Each structure stands twice: as C-alpha cells, then as structure tokens.
C-alpha cells in the first residue's frame, strides 16, 4: 500500500495559486507549529521556526484561511486566490487557556475543532501530564471526568466495571492505530510513550462505527508529539517513596512495611528536525518501583522513536516504534483485610493457588503510516501496525522461564482511509481495515496438551458522511461492517451505525445529539485460558461478542470573559444499553471459573463538567460530576462494580514568583453491588468502599529548570479500586525537569 501511495503522489499537479504569510502572537513573537488551513479543504501547512507558512497548489477561488494552535484562539481570514498568484496573509493569535481552538482527531477520524466534535470528548494536555508526574496512562485518566480506573480496566461512564481480566471495553489508539495487547486485548498502561504524548483524547461512548471492536464504552487516543522547529532535549528525574501504612496490624504482617518504599526513574528525550523534510524524536524511560505491598516490585525500561519524512508538502511518511521491557511481581489479591499488604492463597488444602505471579514482558510495536494530500478535496492515508508481546514467568531467583511456559502474541494489520470533500460543507471518510491476532500461550490449555497458536482474523469496511447545513448544523452518519473469525467454522459479523448532530445555537454554545453502537469480541484469553495456577479457569469457545448502544444529548458552552477568563461547561445526558456482557462465573460442575456471556444491562446518567481558567494560565479550575444509574436487567438489580456518583475537582494556580500549586480531588461512591463469586474464594473481597483521594503539588519553574514536590493521596485515605487490592497509600514524589 505504501508503494502504491508513492506512485500516485506525483499525479497531483494543477494550475494553482499560493497563500503565504506569517503568524505572530500579540507581543509580536513568531509562532512556530501553527496549523494554517483552507477551511473546507485538506490543504494546509504548519508554520516554521520564524512563524512563516506557505500553502501551495491552491486551485483558484475564494477561501477562508484558518490559523489555529493549541493554547491560542483560532483566527480566520477570507482570501481570494487568483490563478498563478501569491496571496500574503498574516495572522496574530491571542493566547487562550482552554481547548476551544484545539484540533481533535478521534471523534471523526479527521481533524476538527474540539468545540464542534459531536460527541462527549475530554482532552488531557501535556501540561497536565507533566504537572502531575504522570508516567503511565492509567494515572493520566484518573483525572478525567466520567472515567474511573478499576486497576487494569478503564471504566468510562460505568461501561467496564471490573471483570477480572476480561479484555478492555475501551479501545486504545496510539496515533489513531489500535494498540491493545495481543494476548488479552488489555491496555498496556506502562508500555506507552507517555513522555512524548502531545495530548490524550477520550471519547465517551461507543465508537465501533469508526473504530470497530473494543470500542464498547469509548475510545482513548494518544497523539504523539510532532517535531519542533529547534532541537529540543528534555530530562525528567523523579523519585519518591510510599509512606509506611497507618495501621500496625498491616505493618506487622510484612517486615518491610515499616520503612518507606522507594520508587524513581527518569525520562530523557530528544526531538529535532533534519532540514525541512525530516524530523524525529527518541525517548528513553526507566522506572523502578519497590511497591507498597509485598510482591509488587516492578522495573520498566522503554524506548520509543518517531521518524517523519515529508518529501513534498503533500506527502508524509511517519514511523512510530517502540520496545518495552518490564519485570514485575503482580499482586493478584490480598490475604484478607487484616493482612492487606500480603498476597493471599486460595485455601483448597493441598496444592495452593497463590495471589501473586511474576513475569518478564517484552512488548514491541512498529506503526508506519503514509499520508498523501492529493488535492484540496481529497487525501488518503495508509497505515500498518505490528504489536508483539512476549511474556515469560519468572523462576524464584528471577530468571525468566522458557517462552514455551509463557505467552507469545502478535497483532498485525493495516488500514486504508480516504478523506474526500466533494463540495464545501460535505466530508466523506471511508476505509478498509484488516487485523489478525496470533497468540500462543501455556495458559490456553492444560499443561499436558501441546500448545496451538490461536488466531482471530478481523476485517472491516467503514464509511462516514458529514454534512454542514446553514453554517451551524453538522450532521454525521457512519456505518462500519466488521467480521471476526472466531474459529475456522464460526465468523461473527457486526454492523455498527452512528448518527450525530451538532447544532451551534449561538457562538460558543453547541447542542449535540449522538447515537452509536459498540461491540467487543472476547479476547483470546477469555475464550482459551484453561489454567488452575492462580484461579481455576476453564475455556469457553462459545463466547459471543458484547454489544452496546448509546444515546446522548449534550450541551457544550464556551464563554470567554473579556479575554481574561475562559469558561467551558458541558452537560450530557446519556443512556447506554449493553448486551451479553462477559463476566467470570463460577461453574459448580466444572469446579472452576469460566468467562460467560452473562449480563444484559442499562446504564443511564448525566455528566456535568466545568472549567475556568485565566488567560495567562495562572489559575485553572476544573469540576466534573457523573451520575450513573447502572442496572443489571438480567438479574434486575444494580450492576456490579459501578459507582453511582463520581466527582472530580482540580485547581491549580500561581502563588508568587516562580511558585505554583495544584490540587486534585476525586470521589467515587462505593459500588452498590459486588461480585459474590470472587468473594467465595478470596477473604474480604467484598470489602470495597468509597474513594476519596486528594493529590497536592507545589512546583517552581525557572527558565529551563522545573522542580516539583507532589503529595499523592495526601490525606492518607485507604481504598480499593478493584477487589482485594489496596490502592496506593500516601506517597511523595520529587520531580526535576530540565529542558535544553
């Protein structure tokens, strides 16, 4: 496909004109990296180090030229481009604090303004990631309204709950490409280039009409940084310790609990351009964590790179790749609430299943892509992906066991997408995608049976039509058809539609209506795991895909006040239906757990979010409240592991001089109902209360140097995010940034 793209590229020539100019801020400083585009087309350019831009090969005609950059209010100017002429158009952008002018890509598989996205969407900025010392994705998401983490599962508006290692019900994308781990379709939280993330987009609600399987409850897209005009090197060092827990009963059961438990690490990255056509960044990160419970130590090393080549202004190649090594103990469940820092054992007498395991993981990813803007109205992109994982259990002395006793898996595939603007105001996005999962694991069958590789090929075709009417109404209709080869004799087929509408009532006030469907094909792990080392689990080849349907009405308001303070409010009412949710169930006849299609459920609720920030980013306030009415329609009782109330508050500001502070508070009410099967085996697994966590930070920044002290779980609140594992106790982090 990439070769095909190269062949087609030179064909894009026409009798054209050109728009060029410069972009500055209000103080007259040149602004590099500003996106300047001709609205209603895919033609555009980014400004260089001197703030200059040039858009070539523009068909003669009248256009609206838009300049936008993160942190600045976008500006638009009309321009008429005569044949063969050069039109000069300069912009002055005003700094803003909110994301009004931000460009997002996940809602429609193309760039669009955040304010116009016809779905519920949250954006996490790199500034937030840096200020909170976020080193893994789950930490970043804990601060997003409506998102709740249940250890290894992302729970967007209650979509996931906690289902004991089922695959993720939220799809993870890295630069638009799926990155779920091939073995269990879970999210590899630590194996992501967080330090190089430009922003994280969180789409709340099913997204299968655009992205296919996995997007049952939402989509998370990590957008990595592009390349700066000037070479840039960043070093971040951090270190800290978990405080000894408050209760002597807990400390007395584990000899190492009386002393602080250290952790630390570093990230070093370098990004630069090589001439006007090449660019790249390289990032290396290491993290060591002794863990706050017994058997929870972890070491991570990851290296990621991104290379870009733009042989012509209309062509772009990108290659994103990475390797992660992790050696860790996994704490699976505690030994009861009186002994919460030690892993438990399943008390069957004789052979004992332990509440911990340890392993070494290598994860590799290679994600090449090619984009070609053929004309102002037509572009296409070709993307391929390979994600591979090797998991090896560890011997008692820490030596990895042979791969044959672990898991080897790969996800590989690709997609082709076209974006076409047949007439102004109409946008067509369409494409095809194909992926395959190939995994071989010693957990997939009893140990005395030879291992077979398990495969699960997927194919899809999708299309979306966006139509703008009366300059204030955007209508979107999308459809995706997926086939999943569950085994050689059985193919699952799914048609996923979506309908959205966004109506700009007045400037800054948008009403949106959204309907969409989602589905998730059970992971190879859910279908094939057959193992009794930790919990007795048997395979289930009859598992069917989970499905969801969502309806939403939302209102988004952006209200700048005299250019000094910007406010943003969002209110959403939603109704989500779920069919055939997969949950582990104890099967008495088999004397083991099995993943089964168990539950039909309905989750309805509302979400309200508010942000306010001063224009100089000196003060920022964020509030989010989510109400969930989650009902299990099969059992006619509350759905398990869903909190009814979620509340988040964030406040940050400048104190004096270089000093700044930040506070983040999150609250989740205790789930109304818990799973009883797990509680039969694990002591006190039914103990799960509300979450009330306050994080505080104090920072100082001086030129290229930044120093911050963070106190996480500042009020020493003990809670669990999933059954039988204590969440991190109070811990302090000292963080040093140096930017060269």
């Amino acid at each position, binding site marked *: 496909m990439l070769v095909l793209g190269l062949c087609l590229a030179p064909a894009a020539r026409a009798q054209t004109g050109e728009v060029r100019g410069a972009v500055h801020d209000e103080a007259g400083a040149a602004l590099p990296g500003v996106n300047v585009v001709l609205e209603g087309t895919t033609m555009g350019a980014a400004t260089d180090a001197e703030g200059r831009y040039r858009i070539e090969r523009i068909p003669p005609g009248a256009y609206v030229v838009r300049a936008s950059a993160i942190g600045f209010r976008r500006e638009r100017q009309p321009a008429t481009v005569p044949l063969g002429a050069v039109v000069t158009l300069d912009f002055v952008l005003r700094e803003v604090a909110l994301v009004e002018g931000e460009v997002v890509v996940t809602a429609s598989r193309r760039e669009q303004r955040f304010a116009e996205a016809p779905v519920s969407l949250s954006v996490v900025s790199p500034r937030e990631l840096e200020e909170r010392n976020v080193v893994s994705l789950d930490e970043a998401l804990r601060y997003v309204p409506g998102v709740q983490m249940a250890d290894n599962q992302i729970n967007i508006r209650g979509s996931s709950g906690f289902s004991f290692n089922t695959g993720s019900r939220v799809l993870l994308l890295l630069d638009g490409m799926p990155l779920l781990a091939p073995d269990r379709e879970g999210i590899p939280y630590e194996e992501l280039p967080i330090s190089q993330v430009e922003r994280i987009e969180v789409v709340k609600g099913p997204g299968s009409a655009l992205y296919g399987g996995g997007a049952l409850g939402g989509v998370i897209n990590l957008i990595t940084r592009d390349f700066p005009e000037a070479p840039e090197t960043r070093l971040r060092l951090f270190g800290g310790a978990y405080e000894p827990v*408050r*209760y002597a*009963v*807990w400390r007395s059961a584990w000899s190492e609990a009386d002393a602080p438990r250290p952790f630390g690490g570093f990230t070093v990255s370098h990004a630069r351009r090589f001439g006007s056509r090449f660019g790249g960044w390289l990032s290396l990160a290491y993290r060591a964590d002794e863990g706050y419970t017994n058997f929870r130590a972890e070491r991570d090393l990851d290296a990621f790179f991104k290379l870009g080549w733009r042989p012509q202004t209309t062509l772009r190649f990108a290659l994103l790749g990475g390797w992660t090594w992790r050696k860790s103990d996994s704490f699976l469940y505690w030994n*009861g*609430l*009186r002994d*919460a820092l030690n892993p438990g054992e*399943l*008390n*069957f*007498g*004789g*052979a004992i*299943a332990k509440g911990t395991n340890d392993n070494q993981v290598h994860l590799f990813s290679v994600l090449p892509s090619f984009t070609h803007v053929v004309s102002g109205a037509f572009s296409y992109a070709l993307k391929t992906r390979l994600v591979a994982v090797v998991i090896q259990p560890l011997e008692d002395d820490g030596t990895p066991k042979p791969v044959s006793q672990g898991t080897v898996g790969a996800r590989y595939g690709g997609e082709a997408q076209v974006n076409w603007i047949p007439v102004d105001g109409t946008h067509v996005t369409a494409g095809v995608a194909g992926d395959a999962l190939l995994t071989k694991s010693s957990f997939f069958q009893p140990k005395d049976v030879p291992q077979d590789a398990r495969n699960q090929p997927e194919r899809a075709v999708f299309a979306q039509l966006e139509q703008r009417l009366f300059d204030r109404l955007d209508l979107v209709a999308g459809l995706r058809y997926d086939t999943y080869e569950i085994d050689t004799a059985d193919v699952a087929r799914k048609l996923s539609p979506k309908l959205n509408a966004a109506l700009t009532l007045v400037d800054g006030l948008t009403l949106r209506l959204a309907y969409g469907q989602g589905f998730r094909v059970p992971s190879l792990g859910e279908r094939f795991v057959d193992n*009794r080392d930790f919990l*007795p689990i048997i395979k289930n080849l009859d598992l069917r895909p989970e499905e969801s349907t969502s309806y939403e009405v939302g209102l988004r308001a952006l209200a700048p*006040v*005299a*250019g*000094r*303070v910007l*406010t943003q409010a969002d209110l959403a009412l939603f109704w989500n239906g779920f069919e055939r949710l997969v949950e582990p169930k*104890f099967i*008495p*006849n088999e*004397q*083991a757990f099995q993943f089964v299609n168990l539950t039909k459920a309905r989750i309805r609720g509302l979400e309200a979010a508010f942000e*306010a920030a*001063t224009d100089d980013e000196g*003060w920022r*306030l964020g509030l989010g409240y989510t109400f969930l009415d989650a009902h299990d329609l099969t059992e006619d009782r509350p759905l398990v592991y869903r909190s009814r109330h979620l509340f988040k*508050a964030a*406040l940050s*500001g400048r104190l004096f001089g270089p000093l700044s502070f930040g*506070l983040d*508070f999150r*609250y989740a009410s205790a789930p109304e109902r818990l799973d009883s099967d797990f*509680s*039969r*085996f*694990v*002591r*006190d697994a039914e*103990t799960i*209360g*509300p979450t*009330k*966590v*306050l994080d505080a930070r104090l920072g100082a920044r001086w030129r290229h140097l930044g120093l911050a002290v963070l106190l996480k779980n500042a*009020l*020493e*609140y*003990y*809670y*669990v995010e999933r059954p039988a594992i*204590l969440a991190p106790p109070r811990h302090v982090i000292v963080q040093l940034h140096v930017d060269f």
Partner: protein
Amino acid sequence: MRASAIARAGRLRASLVTLHRALVPAALLLAGCDHGLEPPEAPPVGAIRGTVTYVQDPAQWPRLDSLRDLRFFALPFVPRDTLDLFRDLNQLVFSERLAFYVTGDTFFVDNVEARAYLYSGVAQQFSDNLLDWRPVGLYEGAGGVFLVRAGQVAELAITVDFERPPPFPPSRAAR
C-alpha cells in the same frame, strides 16, 4: 464597554480565588473525615485437636493416583450442594496434610476462628484438580457440631472409611 468587561473578568478572577478558598477546606472535609478502609478487629480464636482412625489397613488404602491429599476440614455451615460448598470457601478450616497408609493419625489446627462448626471431617483429594475433594469420614459426635471457644482447644475424633465415604452433598436426614 472595555472597562466593564475588565471589571467582570476581575470579578470572575476573584470568584476563582474564592472558589479555591472554599474548595480546599471542602476537599479536606470530604477526604479528611476518615481514612477509608482499616483492618478489622481480629476475631477471637481457638484451636482444634483431633485423632483420625482409619477403618482400612494401610494395604487397603486407595492407590496414590487417587490419593493426592488428605486433610481434616471444618465448615461453619452444612453445604446443601456443591455450589453451596463454594459459597464461602475462605471460611474453610484445613489441617496440615495427614499421613498416608497408616492406621491412625492426629492433627492440630491453631488460630481457628472461635465459632460453631457444623460440618467437619477428613477429606481426600482424588485428582490433581484443586477442587476434586470428597469427604471420607465425618465428625459425628454431638450431631456433628462442635464449638471452638476463644483460647481453648476443641477435641475431636473421626473415623475414616475409604470404601464407604459419607454422601455428598450430605442429606438432611444424615445430618
């Protein structure tokens, strides 16, 4: 016009500061009231001591391939069926493994929660499956019920007959 807008912005900025002043104590109040989960009080404990007598001679015991383990067990409830057995498995009390191919043995289980135990005996694991257990002899004194009192030792005597194991699930009449 511009002056009033700036004044509005100033008021909003002041509001933000006020909100900050209100939010911090509110967060402290919300989160600081308690420390969340805490270890429960330790339940009072006692101990169980027992003797096991085997009906069969060692030569008549099951073969090793169907005798993977043998332990004393006690449950605070009488299981009605297999599912019930797993209703609260972590309440099961187990002894150390008993000796194989002997005429009799003793056991001692310490730190046992002080309470009534309604169903107890000796269980045999008959395959490598973690859950493949069956009772081969039950404690039958006092209607099968015994009490572990705090700080005290309950004494039991159990007879095991591998050829005539008690039915499982136990019938109501049998108990």
